[in-house]
């Protein structure tokens, strides 16, 4: 097979793959440290205290979407981030892969649904929804009694996670993206 045919079959360029790998490595290392903060956070802020920092997990996915700007970038980055978290001793164990994968899929879905626009609102919404999905995995992982109180509680947790995602994921992510682009670190690729 000729080199030209191989080049057309590439899904991501090597540069994009390495950007995704670096973001996943950073996010995974950061995420497993962040998960270990769960105990002190729950002690000070009550049950669900971790949700206040849930958005920090999504920041890396927002950066992956903004820097790579290709379909599936956030999902792949987040799955790798989950694997790094699993291997670096996250207290969530195998569930970390599920938490991360679902968040990445949500970020990708929002970005695609909003027409891949390079607008702060896209990143803010993607960050919020990506962050809120962790409540779904939480509900799957623990057997909550079915009832109104449990549903309201989960809704509240999802709300806190959404807000955290908009701030720590979307707003912070957008600011970082703008700074990286202005500094020329993110390359000169034009927004799609």
């Amino acid at each position, binding site marked *: 097979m000729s080199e030209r045919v191989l080049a057309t*079959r*590439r*899904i*991501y360029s*090597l540069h994009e*793959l*390495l950007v*995704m*790998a*670096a973001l*996943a*490595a*950073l996010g*995974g*290392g950061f995420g497993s440290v962040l998960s270990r903060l769960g105990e002190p956070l729950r002690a000070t802020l009550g049950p669900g205290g971790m949700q206040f920092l849930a958005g920090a997990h999504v920041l890396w996915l927002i950066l992956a979407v903004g820097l790579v700007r290709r379909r599936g970038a956030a999902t*792949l980055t987040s799955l*790798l981030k989950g*694997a*790094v978290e699993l*291997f*670096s001793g996250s207290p969530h164990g195998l569930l970390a892969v599920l938490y991360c994968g679902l968040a990445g899929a949500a970020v990708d879905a929002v970005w695609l649904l909003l027409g891949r626009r390079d607008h702060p609102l896209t990143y803010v919404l993607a960050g919020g929804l990506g962050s809120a999905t962790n409540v779904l995995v939480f509900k799957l992982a623990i057997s909550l009694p079915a009832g109104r109180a449990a549903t309201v509680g989960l809704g509240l947790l999802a709300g806190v996670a959404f807000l955290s995602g908009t701030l720590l994921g979307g707003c912070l992510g957008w600011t970082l993206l703008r700074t990286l682009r202005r500094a020329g670190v993110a390359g000169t690729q034009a927004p799609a």
Partner: protein
Amino acid sequence: MNAVTRTVWTLLTAGLLLAGGGQRIVVEPVAAP
């Protein structure tokens, strides 16, 4: 090597190497004492 294998392989090796190296350089010296 097809495109999917290449993508997954590059991502896994680069990501895990970066994560492992980063942990060894940044976390271990801090945790050592």
